[in-house]
């Protein structure tokens, strides 16, 4: 492979060794919009060269070293159509007028490691989300900002807790065991998106985490993990490009199969310094809650006696108390303050920003705080352009206790089991403390837990890079550039769970016999990548040919350790002082090296784009770490030269690509598990047989479709069909446990995904008084397991097929939902016994289709934006409902009173007892995801408010997740207790409730 690279490079070098140098000049000018307003931050370049710069806040720009003779200036700006202006040989001054590009035809999209192409030529359906769209409403995290905006992406939140916990899956799942989320690349730096458990299982007992500390099970994948891409600051984003599959992302090799999310941050511009200040204030409220029954005193007295043998006194009867309001009814302040500064001179530009953000959450001791500082700098040094960016981020996330619970500690566990005539806010006059709950074994008081248990997760993160673009040779016909990037993403993630010994739940013995629990975990993660590319561009009569070749090296390492202590002195939080302790530890290291070559030809009057590329990669996680795996791609797009019937432009496109999915770390080894007894470390073969020859999964994708502009530039539609085939699945295939192993790593089987994506952008009204722009997206995906080398097996976690599981098997969706539907009863020797169960198949847990409806209305200085996100189909196992129904408010041994809902509950319970999945529900929903009403202050008003210092000022009122339409019975169909998994993300288990968020914002430029 190295030989191939050298050959291509040598060919490239021969193209420019005879070229000659030219005389040069300085060109200045101004970029303005259709109404003459300044257009800042527009890219201005000399066509066929690498010479370029950006317009300042007043639209002015300056270019040095412009070659002599007639030239063409090309001006690009996100949101505007590309402008090309002839520059005569004698001219050194030129103004450029740009027209808004509401259909996003001119957006630049990534085609390779170091190349881009205008959207109107792109051969793939790449979705570009601008920074303005990202931040149309205050977003909890970057992934939240993409919800409803990327056709083909299913973006699911684990629960309503602040701070993230969101998974993105594009065009279905290509894997059963491997990475399932897209690769995130920020300014060329590959970003770590791992999620670490905070160890809350230690006090909830979920997953056996509380059962005698065995096996250090307090660290699990099931509760409240946050994917760390959540640390990124949405306000720093210039735009996001979403490469949806291998046909676009092949160039990212073994990490491109699940798509690539390429994030570009804001950069500086020459001119006087300009500042932008953003201030947001808001709050959040529960968007949904359960309706619990109320009891008259007579009913309550009967109930307490019958079910709890408690003689309820009138003074202890609290009426009808909704504990949901007490725990989650807070309206804490949320805020965001952002300041950014841009400026620069002829050769140096900079962008600096700082953000302080806080989401208040619904419950005490829950919330999300972020501080970030970013500094981007661009330095031109002769033929070399140096860019650097650094961002330091601190996030503090407290997500409280929620989810799966076996110890009577999570709020909905307690709320469901506490009759509404008990008030947890009452004070015990004897102790001065909140009263114990007499209806809960151990007396756990939901409010006491919320007030005293802390779950802080502190992350300190650095993301930075240095890039250089070295223009080694430039002429009118060809350029040769050398591009290098070194990036690092490093963070320290410190998780703590502290449950003091003073709470009733700790004293009850439910968690451990020793009151007081602390989990102290720490993860250190380092991702580093080095990219070097050489790009040659030849401009000739047939068009423009761009050749690139390069290498990339990545280093990804994480170390994780978590300590549990149980039995603490009051006020002491050091696990080392605890009566009993346990530890969990892990580490991973992956190194990859790849090399690529790409050829891109834009010809036929820039109407035909042909691309061919191959990326070859090796990785330490592969069985043979020295073997290169090749990932090619080919694509073509063609803009038809003639248009009629109201069609302005029609582009046909087709693309083929192959990408890999990296083998998870350590799959090639069979380890010895360690078990200690009597102070001696024991060893036995672990449960999984490694595969010494394991290879990466390979996904090939063919994508085709068309983009069409019509109605005189007022409509645009895109249509895409794709077909993906993943072979050589890396399966932790279930092995008969009687062999001594529960799983074996194998390569094999085939998983297909086929789907369609449609986008339609319309400008139904566009006049001086009103502009209405509408954007609708539709996407559907059908996954199918074509073959498996082993019998069908369950995947992911779950709670038994009685409630539902997902199963991987040939002929079914990879996340096929299976559940028992009834069973036999048999009389054996005069004794009634239970016989077999009957399995039923319910279809994929994933949605049948998703749609997004975005509308923008502009009336003068007012703008109203809305986004509705619709997901149709899919399944959820609503186990939260079981908590509600099993509790006293759902079940009661007394009759009469306010029992309107108990018939439903009894029906559910009867169905469940008959062996049917009574709590398996359809997960369809539509959400009013975003609403923004903004008003741009006129200059007089802005001047009066800011004493004439502003260029522009805007005020906004925004709302997020304001309304949900669904037949789902739980709090929110957008939830999963086991979210951090490629499949089987269908579990609603007493999550932190969802919220509506409201913000008021002022955004001013100075």
């Amino acid at each position, binding site marked *: 492979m190295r030989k191939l690279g050298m050959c291509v490079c040598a060919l490239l070098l021969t193209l420019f060794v005879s070229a000659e140098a030219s005389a040069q000049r300085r060109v200045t000018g101004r970029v303005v919009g259709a109404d003459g307003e300044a257009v800042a931050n527009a890219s201005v370049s000399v066509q066929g060269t690498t010479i370029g710069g950006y317009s300042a806040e007043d639209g002015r720009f300056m270019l040095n070293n412009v070659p002599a003779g007639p030239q063409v200036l090309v001006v690009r700006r996100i949101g505007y159509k590309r402008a090309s202006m002839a520059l005569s040989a004698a001219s050194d001054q030129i103004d450029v007028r740009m027209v808004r590009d509401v259909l996003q035809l001119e957006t630049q999209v990534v085609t390779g490691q170091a190349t881009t192409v205008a959207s109107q030529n792109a051969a793939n359906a790449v979705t570009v989300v601008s920074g303005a769209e990202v931040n149309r409403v205050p977003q909890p995290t970057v992934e939240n900002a993409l919800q409803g905006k990327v056709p083909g992406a299913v973006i699911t939140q684990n629960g309503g807790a602040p701070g993230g916990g969101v998974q993105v899956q594009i065009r279905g799942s290509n894997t059963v065991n491997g990475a399932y989320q897209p690769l995130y690349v920020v300014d060329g730096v590959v970003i770590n998106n791992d999620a670490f458990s905070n160890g809350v299982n230690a006090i909830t007992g979920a997953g056996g985490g509380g059962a005698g500390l065995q096996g250090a099970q307090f660290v699990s994948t099931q509760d409240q993990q946050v994917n760390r891409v959540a640390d990124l600051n949405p306000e720093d984003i210039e735009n996001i490009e979403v490469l949806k599959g291998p046909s676009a992302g092949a160039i990212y090799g073994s990490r491109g199969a699940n798509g690539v999310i390429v994030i570009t941050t804001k950069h500086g511009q020459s001119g006087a310094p300009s500042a932008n200040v953003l201030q947001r204030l808001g709050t959040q409220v529960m968007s949904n809650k359960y309706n619990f029954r109320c009891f008259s005193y007579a009913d309550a007295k009967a109930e307490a006696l019958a079910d709890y043998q408690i003689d309820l006194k009138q003074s202890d009867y609290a009426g009808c108390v909704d504990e949901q309001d007490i725990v989650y009814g807070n309206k804490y302040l949320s805020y965001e303050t952002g300041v950014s500064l841009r400026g620069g001179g002829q050769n140096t530009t900079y962008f600096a920003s700082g953000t302080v953000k806080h989401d208040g959450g619904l419950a005490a001791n829950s919330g999300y705080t972020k501080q970030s500082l970013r500094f981007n700098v661009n330095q031109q040094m002769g033929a070399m352009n140096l860019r650097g960016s650094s961002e330091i981020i601190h996030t503090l996330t407290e997500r409280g206790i929620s989810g799966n619970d076996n110890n009577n500690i999570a709020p909905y566990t307690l709320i469901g089991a506490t009759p509404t005539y008990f008030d947890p806010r009452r004070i015990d006059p004897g102790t001065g403390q909140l009263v114990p709950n007499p209806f809960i074994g151990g007396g756990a008081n939901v409010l006491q837990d919320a007030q005293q248990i802390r779950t802080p997760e502190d992350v300190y993160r650095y993301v930075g890079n240095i890039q250089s673009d070295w223009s080694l040779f430039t002429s009118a016909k060809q350029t040769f550039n050398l591009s290098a990037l070194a990036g690092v993403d490093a963070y320290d993630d410190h998780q703590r769970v502290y449950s003091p010994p003073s709470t009733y739940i700790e004293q009850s013995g439910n968690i451990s016999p020793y009151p007081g629990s602390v989990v102290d975990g720490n993860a250190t993660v380092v991702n580093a990548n080095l990219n070097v590319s050489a790009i040659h561009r030849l401009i000739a009569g047939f068009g423009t040919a761009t050749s690139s070749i390069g290498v990339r090296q990545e280093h990804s390492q994480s170390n994780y350790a978590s300590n549990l202590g149980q039995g603490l002195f009051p006020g002491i939080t050091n696990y080392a002082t605890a009566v009993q*302790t346990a530890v969990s530890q892990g580490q991973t290291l992956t190194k990859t090296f790849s090399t690529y070559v790409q050829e891109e030809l834009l010809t036929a009057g820039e109407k035909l784009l042909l691309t061919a590329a191959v990326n070859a990669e090796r990785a330490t996680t592969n069985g043979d770490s020295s073997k290169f795996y090749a990932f090619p791609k080919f694509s073509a797009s063609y803009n038809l030269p003639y248009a009629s019937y109201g069609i302005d432009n029609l582009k046909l496109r087709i693309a083929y690509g192959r990408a890999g999915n990296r083998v998870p770390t350590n799959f090639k080894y069979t380890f010895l598990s360690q078990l200690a007894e009597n102070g001696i470390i024991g060893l036995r073969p672990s449960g999984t047989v490694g595969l010494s020859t394991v290879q990466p999964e390979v996904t090939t994708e063919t994508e085709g479709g068309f983009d069409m502009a019509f109605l005189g530039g007022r409509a645009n539609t895109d249509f895409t069909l794709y077909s993906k085939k993943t072979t050589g699945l890396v399966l932790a295939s279930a092995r008969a446990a009687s062999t001594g*192993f529960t799983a074996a790593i194998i390569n094999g089987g085939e998983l297909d995904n086929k789907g369609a994506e449609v986008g339609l952008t319309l400008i139904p009204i566009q006049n001086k008084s009103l502009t209405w722009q509408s954007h609708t997206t539709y996407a559907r995906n059908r996954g199918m397991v074509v073959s498996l080398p082993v019998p069908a097996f369950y995947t992911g976690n779950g709670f038994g*097929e009685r409630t539902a599981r997902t199963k991987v098997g040939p002929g079914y969706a990879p996340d096929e939902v299976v559940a028992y539907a009834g069973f036999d009863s048999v009389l054996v020797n005069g004794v009634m016994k239970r016989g077999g169960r009957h399995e039923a198949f319910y279809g994929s847990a994933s949605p049948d289709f998703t749609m997004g409806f975005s509308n923008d209305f502009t009336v003068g200085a007012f703008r109203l934006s809305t986004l509705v996100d619709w997901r149709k189909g899919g399944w959820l196992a609503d186990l939260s409902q079981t908590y509600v129904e*099993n509790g006293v408010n759902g079940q009661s041994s007394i009759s009469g009173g306010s029992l309107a809902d108990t018939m439903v509950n009894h029906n559910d319970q009867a169905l469940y007892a008959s062996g049917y999945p009574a709590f398996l529900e359809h997960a369809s929903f539509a959400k009013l995801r975003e609403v923004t009403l903004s008003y741009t202050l006129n200059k007089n008003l802005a001047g009066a408010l800011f004493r004439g210092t502003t260029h522009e000022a805007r005020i906004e009122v925004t709302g997020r997740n304001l309304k949900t339409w669904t037949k789902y019975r739980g709090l929110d169909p957008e939830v999963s207790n086991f979210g951090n998994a490629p499949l089987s993300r269908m579990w609603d288990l007493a999550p932190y409730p969802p919220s509506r968020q409201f913000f008021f914002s002022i955004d001013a430029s100075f």
Partner: protein
Amino acid sequence: MKRNIAVFVGVLALAGACRESLSAPSEDQLVAGTAQPVQNLITGIIAQDRASTISFAYLLYPEGLARNSIRLDPNEPRFTSELIGVPIDPSDFIGGSGWTGWYAEIRAANQFITGPSAAALSPGDKAAAVGFVQTLKALDYIRVVELRDSLGAVIQGADPNVTDPFRTKTAVLAYISAVLDSGYANLTAASTSASMPFTVPSGYALNGDYSQTANVAALNRGLKGEVEVYRGLDHQSPCTACFATAITALNTALTGISATPSASDLAIGPYYQFNPSAPESFSNPFVDNHIYLTDNFVQSIMPGDLRSSKIVKAANLSANIAGLQLSYRDPITDPGNLANLVRPIPIARNAQFFLLRAQAEAETGNLVAATADVNAVHVGEGGLPPYATFAGVADARAAILYEYRYSFIYDGPHHLITARQYGIINKAYVTQPGMPSLASDPSHANDPLQTVLPVPANEAQARGNDVTPKP
């Protein structure tokens, strides 16, 4: 230009320079397949045996099936709903339990017996170590059969890549018997070392010293007696000759023990011990607020039985799960008594061997001997007046069942197994709202019974659902 070319060549050279750094394993755990110290491997087997056995699957669920005890947890109603009412879900944590861990230990044992670490020992040490491991391996096979009974089990072959067929209970018991005999031969061979060539856990020296080869051999014979009794009472293929074999083996196991043993005599045997602190981090799992005794268990104990100390009125009523609410607990489950955290649990003890011998004697018509052996426990642990010689086998069986029920609650599924062997599992009843009493519903139409845990779904699926046992 020369400089440019030099830079580019340097970039390409970087590609080659990276190769050497790509070969390191990513994690610092030990990789299987190489020789390891015998002590670590034996400890791994012992620790895995403890981890597999000290589980609700072996110690609690059978008590639920036998209607002796139920875990009533409002947060986890499956402890109730899986064991009462519907067939146990083989894909869930109850139906899928009590299987994997023992087979993992059996694999570890098989690999040790044939592996390089054992081969490197002296002949005497190897015989002792292999005999010890064979005995533990047989013990875990016994437990697999105890929970699955007539569903059969798998006899694990030498190749872990081969999925061996399901075998009938009869075949598996015969295999276990042979493994025990092979182990016994190793433990009693002339050249065998007197003590084990490794350190045994402290629980193996709590009531008897099981670092001594002779004592392990006695344990081996006790287990042999157990297997032979199981074979004798195997409904599918009763082996009447096995009772005599059982008596012979149990006589060896109980050599030197008084015919009227004290409680301490009956307690002799190896035990599981616990240590809640890291790195072991393993405490007795029965320290649990949700485990309650059924009313039937509470009401059926004889007046004056010392084992009534296991039945105390709980400070709190249990949770009400679908109308089932209980009020008595065994104090060993109380988290308020911290000693419970490290309470040892017997692996096998003499009381069991007395009752096994009584079973064999009763089935062969030696009611005098059977009565004596039942009385060993009835008096030694129950503190009750001795039974007069049983009038018939039915009386003997009833008495044996009683002793298993009250001497071995939470020590293993001995009561369930014996009730199953005797075909009288329907003597208890859990009353939920709407259910009649046992007297009015002797067929358990309203409380359908389950007598075994199902074959775990993962095991069945991995073999294409072919779980029909073969002879």
